[in-house]
């Protein structure tokens, strides 16, 4: 045993390894990505770990392991659970033999996500238990408990951390070596493992009965606690509990109830914890989940307790909580002194806006710019997707008209084509996203005889989530060299023609590839191939000859590279940021920009 200072995601990984996990699979997605990476980093003989092609694949790989009696964990962000929901909903009916923990990381804010959906609702919808950690330390402990619960009740169990728990660091006491659990192996039994309406009917009844028992188990679970004894109580869940506890540490008499296992609701615990309470404030993020549970519980037992929270407007309906909102909301509820210790900051200069942008030298900028130039004056739709390249929407590029979910750019471009055949429909999709959920969309477009151009922005990595490998990179999570799955061959095989591969930084070639494809009927593809600048070491950089620069600022106005700025009416290049991609030099009307060695 030793103390390890790790991120919440690392704590979850250590929790799984400590529980003797046999298989871990997942797809990268902020804020969950580091779980798999941490499992891979520690010595884990006997534990199989992979980056799967998407969350559905991960869930199914893990389900088979659990059918074998092995302990399996699958990791994803909350929208990944939508992708994996098909296997999960059915798996909830079939059940498991070995423990199976589904980690679905929620993202209040949202900070790096499309939605503020609440995985606790998903757990209730799927009728499976969920653990909700309030800190990395608790997340570590919960993983072991979740495996035990999963095996006791033969059901997948969800662990639902949120961003601030995933990305918080703490010291965890954990073993230095790990031994994977022994498992029996798959025992064939088609009445058990093959889902049929009859089986679902029987198991549905069993599940509803079982969940009452789990709720009773949870009522004596150490993750649910109460301190203080005031008539007005605060109930908090997840990291919101940490914020509430931080504010209430000077008020130990205030009743503070923590719920670490939101579903099935620990009813007996709550009834006891709320004994003598007249009014309760639910301090939680995302949906008013506990608040609604309490309203039901209070109705069921005819209790005289006033419930406040999101539904009464006391807690904001969206966005994340923090220590400041905890202080404001809880002090108002308890009629305590809310004056913080803030300094007077009037007259402070307004800080500039800093929207996230494509990195200096990012090849996606060149790809977008090439399409923009080729389509100048033509009617075109640009359907984006999930990844760094969503940032192509920012001015001055303004090249992302839609972004919905993983893979949707391909199928939406097809939809636009059917509704407006005169316009040129483009889809922009990254290499990792292409494998995750782009291929089926391309098949759909070919099958339904669409006219559109698929632009694969192939930077040889999953950049946005921290540079994970994918099937096209020729190596997997364990850095084992594997056969590269060729995007070009996949596209050719499903009937896309032509498939043109081009270096986006070769601007003229890239523009002519786009023009060529725009003149052809059918589904065409351009693979813009250039590695992510964050994983390559630049050797050159660009420099503006200030004597030659005429101050037209075309370089800045056209491409919006963060390395370019204006000084004294002329363009200047930040030599630390510049990677020497040379895109700006290609636009300069007076050839004032040239390359020098870094």
């Amino acid at each position, binding site marked *: 045993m030793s*103390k390890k*200072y790790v991120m919440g995601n690392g704590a979850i990984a250590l929790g799984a390894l400590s529980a003797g996990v046999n298989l871990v699979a997942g797809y990268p997605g*902020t*804020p969950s990505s580091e779980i798999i990476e941490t499992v891979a980093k520690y010595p884990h003989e006997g534990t199989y770990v992979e980056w799967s092609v998407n969350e559905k694949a991960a869930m199914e790989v893990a389900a088979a392991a659990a059918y074998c009696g092995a302990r399996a964990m699958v990791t994803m962000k909350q929208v990944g659970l939508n992708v994996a929901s098909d296997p999960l909903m059915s798996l909830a009916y079939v059940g498991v033999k070995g423990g199976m923990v589904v980690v679905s990381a929620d993202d209040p804010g949202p*900070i*790096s996500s499309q939605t503020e959906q609440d995985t606790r609702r998903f757990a209730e919808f799927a009728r499976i238990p969920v653990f909700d950690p309030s*800190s990395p330390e608790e997340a570590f402990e919960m993983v072991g408990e979740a495996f035990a619960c999963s095996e006791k009740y033969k059901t997948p169990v969800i662990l639902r951390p949120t961003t*601030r*728990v995933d*990305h*918080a*660091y*703490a*010291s965890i006491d954990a073993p230095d070596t790990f031994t994977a659990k022994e498992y029996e192996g798959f025992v064939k039994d088609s009445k058990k493992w093959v889902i049929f309406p009859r089986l679902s009917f029987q198991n549905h009844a069993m599940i509803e009965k079982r969940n009452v028992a789990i709720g009773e188990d949870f009522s004596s679970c150490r993750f649910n606690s109460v301190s203080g004894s005031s008539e007005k109580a605060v109930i908090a869940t997840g*990291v919101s509990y*940490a*914020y509430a*506890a*931080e*504010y209430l*540490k000077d008020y130990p008499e205030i009743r503070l109830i923590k719920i670490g296992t939101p579903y099935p609701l620990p009813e007996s615990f709550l009834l006891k914890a709320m004994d003598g309470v007249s009014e309760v404030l639910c301090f939680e993020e995302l949906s008013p989940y506990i608040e609604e549970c309490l309203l039901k519980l209070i109705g069921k037992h005819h209790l005289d307790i006033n419930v406040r929270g999101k539904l009464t407007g006391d807690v904001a309906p969206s966005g994340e909580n*923090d*220590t*400041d909102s*905890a*202080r404001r909301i809880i002090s108002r509820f308890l009629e305590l002194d809310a004056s*913080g*210790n*803030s*300094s007077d*900051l009037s*007259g*402070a*200069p307004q*800080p*500039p*806006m*800093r*929207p*996230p*942008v*494509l*990195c200096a030298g990012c090849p996606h900028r060149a790809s977008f710019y090439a399409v923009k130039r080729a389509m100048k004056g033509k009617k075109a739709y640009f359907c984006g997707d999930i990844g*760094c390249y969503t*940032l192509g929407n920012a*001015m*001055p590029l303004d090249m992302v008209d839609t972004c919905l979910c993983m893979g949707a750019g391909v199928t939406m471009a097809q939809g636009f084509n059917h509704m407006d055949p005169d316009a040129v429909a483009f889809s922009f999709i990254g290499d990792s996203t292409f494998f995750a959920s782009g291929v089926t969309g391309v098949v759909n477009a070919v099958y339904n005889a669409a006219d559109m151009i698929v632009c694969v922005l192939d930077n040889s990595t999953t950049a*946005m*989530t921290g540079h994970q490998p994918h099937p096209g990179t020729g190596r997997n999570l364990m850095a084992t060299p594997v056969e590269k799955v060729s995007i070009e061959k996949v596209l050719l095989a499903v009937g896309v023609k032509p498939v043109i591969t081009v270096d986006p930084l070769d601007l003229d070639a890239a523009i002519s590839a786009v023009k060529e494809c725009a003149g052809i009927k059918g589904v065409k593809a351009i693979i813009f191939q250039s590695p992510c600048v964050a994983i390559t070491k630049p050797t050159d950089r660009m420099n503006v000859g200030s004597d030659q620069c005429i101050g037209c600022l075309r370089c*800045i*106005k056209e491409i*919006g*590279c*963060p390395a370019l*700025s*204006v000084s004294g009416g002329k363009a200047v290049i930040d030599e*630390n*940021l510049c990677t020497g991609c040379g895109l700006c030099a290609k636009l300069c009307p007076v050839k004032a920009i040239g390359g020098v060695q870094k």
Partner: protein
Amino acid sequence: MKKDVMICGVGGQGTVLASKIIAASATDEGNAVHSAETIGMAQRGGPVTSHVRIGEDAFSPLIPIAGADLLIAFEPSEAIRNLRYLKKDGFVIVNRVPVKPTSLGGSEGYDGKAEIAYLRSKCQCLVVDSDELCAPFGSSKFFNVAVLGAALGSGELGLKEETVRRTITKIVPKRFQEKNLAALTAGMKIGEGLL
């Protein structure tokens, strides 16, 4: 020890390494430590913060408003953006070199000078210059460790020099260690000059 340290800057400036070094050093000295980072989309050129909380009674991973003993700002306007986190008698170490936002226009006027003047008028602060500090090392990438040196030298960090040096040799890749240790020393001189 009980200390809340906030580090802020712009994505790509290396704030995460600075917070990791502080957290690991404080742990090494026997403290309970919690910290939190900005990770994900915001890292791409957006404002980033690290919260490092040293001491037993830190429940939240985030420092409360007006709770930070020390604010280390890698950029003038980011110091202003996060100034509400500083305690009334807290200390600020700020880099005077601005990072201009990428957006078209509007950024031309921003040079960080008004921000530095405001900070000087409002709180106790040490203004450092990343260009000057990093010139001997050939890259502004060493600023994160240099500014840590300034915090260490000023005495505001409350950590021992030997602990921080040991941490750097543990967590920084070997080929960068020498320059990082030199950057720490350079920063310490600036910080000590304050005493």
